[in-house]
């Protein structure tokens, strides 16, 4: 990094020149006899040593202030960086270690005492970001991660993309040794780039490359603030290795750290809120659809209030727990078909909410589109994402015309909308609204009975049905303060259909970008937040998902993050099993299964992975494979006890495909 002003005090370069001169004379002796250094007169420039002094040696040598006697001749810049980080109350720092950030790494654990944030040893950068993602969904607070700005960031990218699509803040800091003239040759140069942030610029909200410590302070606080302002999202800071390692030169001014003041989230325009309220109040059958509406537990309360005011059914698309599944107004996705007004709250895909797509190979192979709503249905949208779109990645989905579109945060807009709806409901409508509620109650009760009857199918089958897997697991934890820390588990939605999801922490929702490999690390991050809150974490863990980076199991054991992982081991990348089967059928060719149960390249069998052994080898309590449903209940009981005692536990359960 080109720092413009070398500063008035001991300059690293001059200092090093002195070291080099002294070193040239005595190199041979000092390399082989480092202990002799203790006899040298202080405070002359130190002679280079093959060994770094330990803290104790350094302290024994030091009678005078540390700034002038340590090797670098002052306080390292990364100490100040830690001061900045500490102002933001970031509790954990999951990361995989790398030399491009060794400066701040050392400061964090030695100067910063490894607290706020506490370093969590991760075995893959994707795991680190996935953990931060899952943590936020329970704690509502962001974590930061550090990585090699090139190779580490390349590993981290998919997880950053998921966080972007899921509107989750993560502060990613990549080490990068920018000064080509001074950085070490070889590996550190391979691991440097002009602009590491370019790699993730398309799916981060903001990025910066601070060139001074004062700049770092502003960048970091700004990054935190931008990440946390709805729509939330990941941010990226490129952290120069030189800046971390050089001494603080403050030119007599105290380095300032800006105070973090959260930005109030944007609300929908008041005129549009009024128009939306009028449409909803006068509707025959208004339906509410929510995806990321409840950013906080209060969002659920507000949505219940709005739904009850209108007696409108609510479809929860489930990127968060938006609405209690137990509420009689909770409705399935098909409920849009009878609506005359639909209110979409933070939907990631409004088009697919009101249209259908059938992957049937028709129309030259592209499939068939259809509408799922009546003609003339009025559409209202409140979405903060309209304020933050980018061009490259297509997470904005297909274009949908909306009658009343609002750029604003749904949760922040709901109070005004509720008041406006109350004011807009004509007295003559009250009876009809009440009747709507009665019909919804009946529909909800009937749906519940149908769901349970469907769950009873294949109840005794082996491998174990996904409905039974979820029902057994619920029975094992229902009296605890539970939280589901898996994305969906790919278990035919049985978690959502059978568990009484009603609180914000009851489920972390989906990954956002459907980048597989999110499930395991997100579960560990969410379990960490639950551990601190005294809750019990349950993870229905898909097999394929786990194997992208199973080292996160070790991180959980290492840092004593308990969770009950119940594997949905369908012995395959089942989604892809079906895709290749589908295409084989369309093309009228028998699918080539090779020696397996499904198309070549999609199955995880021959040999079977012994997940229980994998977990056990990394410090988990584990059992399996469990194939007989009659054995599941007792194994779950055992595992729950282990988790309650603070150890993560995994059951390797062989399951039906979905």
């Amino acid at each position: 990094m080109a720092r413009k002003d070398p500063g008035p005090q001991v300059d690293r370069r001059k200092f090093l020149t002195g070291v080099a001169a002294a070193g040239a004379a005595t190199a041979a002796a000092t390399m082989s006899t480092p202990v002799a250094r203790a006899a040298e007169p202080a405070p002359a420039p130190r002679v280079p040593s093959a060994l770094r002094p330990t803290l104790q040696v350094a302290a024994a040598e030091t009678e005078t202030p540390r700034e002038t006697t340590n090797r670098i001749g002052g306080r390292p810049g990364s100490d100040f960086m830690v001061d900045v980080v500490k102002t933001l109350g970031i509790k954990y720092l999951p990361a995989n270690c790398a030399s491009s950030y060794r400066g701040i790494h050392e400061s964090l654990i030695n100067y910063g005492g490894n607290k706020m944030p506490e370093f969590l040893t991760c075995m893959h950068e994707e795991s680190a970001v996935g953990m931060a993602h899952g943590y936020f969904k329970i704690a509502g607070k962001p974590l930061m991660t550090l990585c090699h700005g090139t190779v580490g960031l390349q590993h981290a990218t998919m997880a950053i993309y998921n966080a972007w699509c899921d509107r989750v803040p993560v502060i990613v800091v990549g080490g990068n040794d920018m000064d080509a003239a001074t950085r070490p040759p070889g590996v550190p140069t391979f691991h440097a780039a002009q602009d590491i942030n370019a790699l993730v610029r398309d799916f981060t909200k903001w990025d910066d490359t601070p060139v001074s410590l004062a700049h770092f302070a502003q960048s970091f606080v700004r990054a935190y603030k931008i990440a946390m302002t709805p729509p939330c999202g990941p941010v990226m800071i490129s952290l120069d290795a030189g800046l971390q390692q050089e001494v603080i030169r403050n030119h007599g001014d105290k380095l300032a750290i800006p105070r973090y003041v959260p930005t109030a989230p944007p609300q929908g325009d008041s005129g549009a809120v009024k128009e939306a309220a009028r449409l909803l109040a006068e509707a025959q059958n208004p339906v509410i659809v929510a995806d990321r509406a409840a950013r906080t537990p209060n969002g659920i309360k507000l949505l219940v209030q709005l739904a009850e005011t209108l007696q409108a059914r609510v479809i929860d698309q489930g990127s968060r727990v938006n609405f209690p599944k137990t509420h009689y107004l909770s409705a399935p996705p098909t409920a849009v078909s009878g609506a005359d007004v639909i209110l979409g709250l933070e939907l990631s895909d409004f088009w697919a909410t009101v249209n259908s797509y059938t992957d049937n190979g028709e129309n030259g192979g592209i499939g068939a589109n259809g509408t799922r709503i009546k003609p003339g249905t009025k559409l209202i949208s409140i979405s903060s994402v309209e304020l933050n779109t980018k061009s490259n990645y297509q997470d904005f989905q297909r274009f949908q015309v909306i009658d009343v579109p609002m750029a604003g945060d749904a949760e922040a807009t709901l109070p005004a909308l509720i008041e406006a709806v109350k004011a807009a409901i004509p007295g003559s409508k009250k009876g009809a609204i009440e009747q709507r509620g009665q019909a919804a109650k009946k529909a909800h009760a009937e749906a519940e009975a149908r769901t349970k009857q469907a769950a009873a199918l294949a109840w005794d089958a082996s491998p174990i049905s996904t409905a039974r897997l979820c029902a057994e697991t619920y029975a094992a934890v229902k009296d605890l303060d539970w939280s589901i820390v898996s994305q969906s588990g790919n278990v035919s939605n049985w978690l959502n259909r059978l568990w009484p999801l009603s609180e914000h922490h009851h489920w972390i929702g989906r990954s956002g970008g459907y980048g597989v490999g999110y499930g395991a690390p997100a579960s560990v991050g969410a379990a960490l937040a639950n551990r601190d809150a005294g809750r019990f974490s349950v993870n229905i863990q898909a097999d394929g998902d786990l194997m992208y980076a199973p080292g996160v199991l070790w991180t959980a054991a290492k840092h004593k993050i308990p969770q009950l992982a119940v594997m949905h081991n369908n012995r395959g990348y089942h989604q892809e099993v079906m895709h290749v089967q589908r295409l084989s059928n369309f093309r009228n060719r028998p699918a080539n299964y090779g020696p397996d149960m499904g198309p070549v390249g999609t199955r995880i069998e021959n040999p079977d992975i012994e997940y229980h052994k994998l977990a056990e080898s990394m410090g988990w309590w584990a059992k399996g494979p469990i194939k007989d449903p009659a054995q599941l209940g007792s194994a779950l009981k055992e595992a729950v006890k282990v988790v309650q005692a603070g150890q993560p536990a995994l059951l390797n359960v062989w399951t039906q495909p979905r």
Partner: protein
Amino acid sequence: MKRAVLLLAVLGASQAALAAGSAEKGKTAYAQHGCWQCHGFAGQGGITGPKLAPDPMPLEALLAFVRNTRGAMPPYQKAILSDADLADIHAYLQSLPKARDYKSIPLLNP
């Protein structure tokens, strides 16, 4: 109209196979042709496909559906799945036990 004609053609062609269903062979065919992928090993269904058992639709209807569907299920033509295999699959589906009443399962009534 076009669909009805097609359906009739299929029904005509498959008469010979109709009687030959073997549940045991059907179990194998059900696995080998990937029906389990979307409908479950016990035909219980899930988010990826509806339940097929117990009480499967009549064989004629099943044949017509599997050959000609233009919905969310990819059709199986004769080139990849014979009428005889489908008749066996039907026999297998018919052999699957009735579902238990959910009210009799304590875990489904927590």
